């Protein structure tokens, strides 16, 4: 098993910078940004089969920025991000998805959303029956399936 880090230090810095652009910290909702160290650690630990495309995305981002993303002024950084989203294809989409899937399983984020900090199994959830009288007008309809000769 390879012990080589999935991303170079420069790539990790850019990943962190772009993650903060996707989801910045919010005091209003009391949630970290996606550049949070714990979330970044989750991303790096679980890149797995997405590593290749994420590397491609970060290489493309580096070419667009021509310097570390964090060093760009805000306007330029925004322009690079827009170009990355519009022309980055599957690689950019994968990077974005990887950030989102780790962010939206973080305890602090789920707590802010009012969601439980657990997998679905084994507890499951309760599904209310709903108002079955809504079906009454449909039940009253005559048979509508097409007869065959």
């Amino acid at each position: 098993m390879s012990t080589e880090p999935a991303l170079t230090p420069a790539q990790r810095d850019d990943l962190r910078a772009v993650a903060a652009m996707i989801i910045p910290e919010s005091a209003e909702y009391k949630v970290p940004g996606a550049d949070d160290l714990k979330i970044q650690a989750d991303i790096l630990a679980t890149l797995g089969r997405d590593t290749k495309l994420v590397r491609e995305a970060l290489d493309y981002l580096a070419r667009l920025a021509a310097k570390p993303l964090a060093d760009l002024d805000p306007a330029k950084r925004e322009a690079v991000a827009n170009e990355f989203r519009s022309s980055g294809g599957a690689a950019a989409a994968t990077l974005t998805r990887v950030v989102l899937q780790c962010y939206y399983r973080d305890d602090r984020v789920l707590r802010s959303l009012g969601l439980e900090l657990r997998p679905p199994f084994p507890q499951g959830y309760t599904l209310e029956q709903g108002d079955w009288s809504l079906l009454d007008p449909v039940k009253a309809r005559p048979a509508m399936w097409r007869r065959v000769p």
Partner: protein
Amino acid sequence: MNESVDVLIIGAGASGAAVAWSLAETKMHILCLDQGGWMNPAAYPSTGRDWEARFFGDYSPSPNIRARPEDYPINDDNSPIKVVNFNGVGGSTVMYTAHFPRLHPSDFKVKTLDGVADDWPIDYDTLAPFFAENDRMMGVSGLSGDPAFPPTDPPMPPLPLGRSGAALGKAMNKLGWHWWPSDTTVATTDYEGRARCINLGHCTPACAQGAKASTDITYWPAALRAGVELRTHCRVREITTNEHGMASGVVYYDEDGVEQFQAAEVVIIACNGIGTPRLLLNSASGRFPNGLANSSGLVGKNLMFHPYAQVYGFVEEVTDSNRAPPICLWSKEFYETDLSRGFVRGYAIQFGRGVGPVFEAVMSEGKGILPWGPDHHRVFRRLNGHRLAASAICEDLPEEHNRVTLDPQLKDSHGIPAPKVDYRIGGNSVKMMEHGIARAKEVLAAAGATDICVNSPILYGGWHLLGTARMGTDPERSVVNEWGRSHDVKNLFIVDGSVFVTSGGVNPTSTIQAIALYIADQMKSRLADLFD
């Protein structure tokens, strides 16, 4: 040297399991080979905190993305709809939504009724007892009395309406359109050793509770108890034939990758609409140079997918989202032909309850309705847990240019040529999808939804793999006869979705399994002269 068997079944999925169970009562020596293994529910995605992320990886519905050792690659570059399936004991019933409608009576007579495609050589009434038997074996939850369908008697009550179902039902009532709780193989009560649904929500990529029927937990335990042998991690390369033009057995690779020969008196293929033509084409020989059972030239042709046109939006009230099975309601309002709509045949509408937070974030960001930056949080809270969805599942008419062939370069891990799919959506289907999108938007508008988004077709929506070894009475226009036997090879049977003549506009698993039980019944009743 493997001992010869009476019946060899290739594939342990929806149809292979059903046919194995039904034939078991004959006490013949029945062996099933499957390229995958037994599933481990303790490792299913819903058991872990990364339950949504795994849908994009090792539990992706696409075999090309999932790439488990059991999977084989599929070249679907030349198709706007990508093939999705699952390989292992249970097949794609391990990874399906458990939506369980039946084909309608009219679906079997499209030529007679509408002048398109071909009639089936069998009809709904022929299959009716096998539908009922399959409902009992798989365990169907549903509600009798749907005015859009002949009477049925599901053994379990339907899934609750929930918040999403109630919101959608109200909207449909405003429009005066038909709707009904969907039949599903999600158990709503404890049933035949299966625990009832506890609303894990993430049903499609396998059910850790065992409430969703997959054949590894329904048919297979019964078939094994009855004496059927199931050999796993065995990938069949080709069906061999003898000097009489009869199937003599198969060549397969065992779990250790060692080539084996298995002799059999009868061979049954249950690999569905991609795997079955692939196997027949890979079984070409001097006797059958164009592929086995292919004198008609139709093996691999007439592939039908069911193009899905999906529309979704967001309402102010909270929906069920991921806290319930995705299966909810169906509508057959636009199922039967009405030429004033500009197309023949029709579609069902499937309604969904919503998704989990990761899916919501990924899909909404991809659609451009969830922004990057400071406003992300506010918008996400408005979207997450507020989604309602409607999908038109459109009848796909058979067209010979939609086909499965062998890829000249791509091979699986055993070096067996992989399938190549060439498919385009037909003009009739395009009109149907446009109609479905417009109607779905009306429903969502009636429900008060905003931020309406469309996926048409659903890219990774090639669940239903039909028509590539069609059934018929004319050997020049079909691959198997009206009871599933190859016209060309008298001891070769096909029992999966590839025998469909037309697709209907509903999920096909129920009909596939009813056909498998029907063919098994035909075989049992003809044992004395099965090869005549």
